[in-house]
């Protein structure tokens, strides 16, 4: 090149932050969701809420502790490999209760239906809810139905709320992680997110992968009986990366993971490589991460292996420090990197 270029003075501009309008990223479960909760919901609605933000809130009624929680489900498509919106709606709330160590008792459900939905589809969804509730050992106690005009919703939205009881002595919370705690996951990561993605049109890939959507309350019961569990969380939207960052922050600890120990199915690995996603940021609906007392880790892992949804449970890391809220990874080749939470929407990269 003959003419030397003058590089100085070229800079780039300030991007626009979604300050005035809700964007899809606010519902991603990642940092934008946290911002929305902290900036808008908590200041207005959170005055009486418990200090700790876990998957369920604990309330005390005449000396008996109960857990309550709620979750709305807007998945598209309604039916995906390994599950559907009905199973998801039951399992999501059952799992949120189980993650504070509660025994789920009953759910309520609210249906928002777009005019034009066929009875056949609705019936299949409801039967799936019935089966999931039976598997979890809970009952659906109350419900509500609203129909909106065409275009007012995308076919079917389901909200479920749930209640469970918490036994004396059970103390499970995102702020209970301690130095030395062993970190376990109950199985392979990213199955649900990639299975749902593969069912959407326009992606150009197919897979035999099934969503992992499942009720985890029986697994949690086995774990609590086997040893001392400090933290439980189901890494749904935002994946394990987001969940662990939340826990690191709540407990103010440094968590170190070993890349070689993290269970990821080859299909999920391949899809993530292709689309530019990180399996640690992909959603799960039937997995949990647990922080347990080091001396009990072996017993708890053993108990998990005997349950249906914990067969592939593995130790993936530990809490190494209590000075800095951080999640680190020892990479397979011996390097280290930070693990960050999902920012907004998962965006496939260009090349």
């Amino acid at each position: 090149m003959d003419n030397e270029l003058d590089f100085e003075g070229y800079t780039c501009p300030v991007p626009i932050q979604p300050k005035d309008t809700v964007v899809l990223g606010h519902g991603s479960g990642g940092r934008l969701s946290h911002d929305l909760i902290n900036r808008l919901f908590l200041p207005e609605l959170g005055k009486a809420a418990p200090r700790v933000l876990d998957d369920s809130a604990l309330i005390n009624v005449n000396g008996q502790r109960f857990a309550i929680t709620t979750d709305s489900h807007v998945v598209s498509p309604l039916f995906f490999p390994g599950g559907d919106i009905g199973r998801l709606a039951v399992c999501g709330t059952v799992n949120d209760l189980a993650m504070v160590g509660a025994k789920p008792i009953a759910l309520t459900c609210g249906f928002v239906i777009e005019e034009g939905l066929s009875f056949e589809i609705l019936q299949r969804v409801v039967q799936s809810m019935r089966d999931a509730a039976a598997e979890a050992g809970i009952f659906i106690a109350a419900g509500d139905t609203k129909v909106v005009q065409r275009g007012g919703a995308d076919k079917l939205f389901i909200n479920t709320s749930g209640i469970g009881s918490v036994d004396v002595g059970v103390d499970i919370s995102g702020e209970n992680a301690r130095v030395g705690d062993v970190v376990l996951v109950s199985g392979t990561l990213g199955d649900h997110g990639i299975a749902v993605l593969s069912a959407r049109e326009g992606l150009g890939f197919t897979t035999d992968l099934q969503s992992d959507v499942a009720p985890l309350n029986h697994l949690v019961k086995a774990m609590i009986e086997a040893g001392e569990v400090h933290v439980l969380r189901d890494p749904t939207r935002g994946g394990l990366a987001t969940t662990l960052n939340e826990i690191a922050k709540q407990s103010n600890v440094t968590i170190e993971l070993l890349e070689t120990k993290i269970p990821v199915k080859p299909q999920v690995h391949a899809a993530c490589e292709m689309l530019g996603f990180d399996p640690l940021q992909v959603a799960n609906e039937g997995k949990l991460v647990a922080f347990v007392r080091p001396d009990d880790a072996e017993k708890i892992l053993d108990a998990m292996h005997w349950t249906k949804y914990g067969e592939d449970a593995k130790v993936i890391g530990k809490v190494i420090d209590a000075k800095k809220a951080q999640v680190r990874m020892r990479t397979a080749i011996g390097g280290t990197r930070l693990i960050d939470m999902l920012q907004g929407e998962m965006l496939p990269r260009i090349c």
Partner: protein
Amino acid sequence: MKYVDEYRDPAKVRGLLGEIDEQVTRPWVLMEICGGQTHAFLHHGLDEMLPGGIELVHGPGCPVCVTPLEQIDKALAIATRPDVIFTSYGDMLRVPGSTMDLFNIRANGGDVRVVYSPLEAIRIAETSPEKQVVFFAIGFETTAPPNAMAVLQAKQRGIKNLSVLVSHVCVPPAMEAILSSKTNRVQAFLAAGHVCAVMGYHEYPAITEKYKVPIVVTGFEPVDLLVGVLAAVRQLEAGKAEVQNAYERAVTFEGNQTAQNVMNTVFQPVDRKWRGIGMIPQSGLGLRPEFEAFDAEKRFSVGELVTQESPLCIAGEILQGIKKPPQCAAYGNQCTPQSPLGAPMVSAEGTCAAYYRYHRELVPNG
């Protein structure tokens, strides 16, 4: 996973690191061209495992980062129109124009859709004949052939409601721009393996000849990257400046002729602004006159739109490898992926985003 695990083998990595260590007798500055390579170095923690004498500076090879502001403003102007379905690769949605990004357009009712292939835009055009479908054709020589193919197919099939907003850029002119800059520190290049898979490396001997720097075609896995670094260091230590292919499983000298033919049929070289760098003559690709009918700039009369960049971050110096992200005062505090000040923090392939995700604790103010 096959074709991945064998290139992430810890024993091979240790062996290569040892070999590089044996070769290095003095400090060297290497630039990896591609944002994908930058991310791979940091994702695996490989940059910190290299011998101290090797400094990596991170090149301008992030297609999102270098797409100029005014092309994004044109995209936003088009995407706002009620008669338009605007289609784009996912990364571009978050890149800001002067006042908005494509996410905002979508939240305010614009029909903005992420596609994984430009051929998907054709399908949308066919199924939505009442709408104008626009595809944002950005990227290097890697995305240019499929984008050209979409235009070609649209012409052959007589699809009238599809157009493309073109902002393609080419790697070799950028390498020359960096080497000819008076602030240049780069002593060897790790050339972008994916670009070379399409283009081959027949364009590079002229550059090594003129500027006396080694260019090593390099892949993206840890073993690939280290093989590239080792080859570059060997050349530097021996005083050589040659073109070498360290990514033979994907790259040939001539490259993919079919892809190049499609690209050359539809596109021709044009002057192009690079965000953070500026105008580089003949560094971009634009539609040839016979495909003018598919030019979204003409169809929607946004060709005259000109935007000035505002001086708020040091992206220009980052993209040329003059500075590292932690040397920017805004990095890690005012500028994060959540609240980016500059394009390198926006894209998943951007240098600043890679540092923020994987190395934040290295930053004094992070």
